[in-house]
């Protein structure tokens, strides 16, 4: 299962978050200052980094980085 730490590394590498120190993986992307288009970039970055594809149904369940972890855990 992918760790939150790994997802945070990918988020940091995306350059989408100015201050990773203030980024809370439990809070929604919106509350972390990531808009809907940047979420697409982040999810694509996660897909490329981890070598997977999110389905539309999975994306519908993702509002936060913690949701990404939960979606991937549900695959196992």
């Amino acid at each position, binding site marked *: 299962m992918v760790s939150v730490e790994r997802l945070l590394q990918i988020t940091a590498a995306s350059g989408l978050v100015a201050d990773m120190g203030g980024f809370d993986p439990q809070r929604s992307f919106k509350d972390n200052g990531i808009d809907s*288009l940047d979420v697409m970039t982040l999810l694509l970055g996660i897909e490329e980094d981890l070598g997977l594809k999110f389905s539309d149904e999975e994306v519908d369940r993702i509002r936060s980085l913690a949701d990404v972890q939960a979606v991937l855990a549900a695959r196992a």
Partner: protein
Amino acid sequence: MPGIENIASYVPAGRASNLEPALLERFQIDEKFVRDKIGVLRRAVKGADEETSDLAVRALQALLEKTGLAADAIDALVVVTQNPDTNLPHVSALVHGKAGLAARCAAFDLGLGCSGYVYGLSVLQAFLAGNGLARGVLVTADPYSKIVADDDKNTVLLFGDAATATLLGPVPVYRAGPFSFGTRGAAHEALACREGRLAMNGREVFNFAATGVAPDVLGLLQRAGIGKDEVDAYLFHQGSRYIVETIRARLGVAQERVRLGLQDVGNTVSSSIPLLLERELENPESRILVLSGFGVGLSWASCLCKREK
């Protein structure tokens, strides 16, 4: 091989603002998002009484006025559209009739979306060369206002109406080629018209453009033996400011080399690249260009353009 001699365009006078407070409230977005991410402040909207062929004729007439070319000097007319006046006849026949082109002038349509202009350049220049014809006109006219629903956040803030006409002939300013093409037909549902309304899976279209365009352009440049920093200007299809910036970043080229032109018209589908190219014709510093269109299909096409004079 014929090349690009001139380009003219017709952008309808009508505009719809993306900064209307009611619209921002309805879609829960702010002005900064519209300016910085979508990049479209106003969308060009055709008149209710204007048909696709009318837009095309206006662009063609502007080209004839700009060049002084007689209508009967055109040997071939190609219209790129997926929103014709009617299912049949083809729009190019309507334009042919309205513009009074010669009976010997070939006329056919290309059913392509945002990749259509680059495809059209390749098709028309080969058609002219292969048949010993001197001059052809490539028209783009694909008014999405016909199919975009006002309540669809995914599309209504993006698309605008416009038409362009490109003259291909024996004394070009730009010579186009080599070309590259591609299709992900299995993903065609990501951008489609269903029951008369446009439907777009924004994430799938974004992923397609973000992952597909830069490698295609790099492959094209490698095949041509040209470095990415030798290109004076990149003219990407103007899907949105965000997608253009994403492709630029993935390609790794400076912002000043990448053109943006959707702020006051929107994403004009197959017209977006020729609207940009029309400006480059007036810029003698722009000697090597990359054109890349991508969208409906999902389809993409890229080419180099080298200045001849």
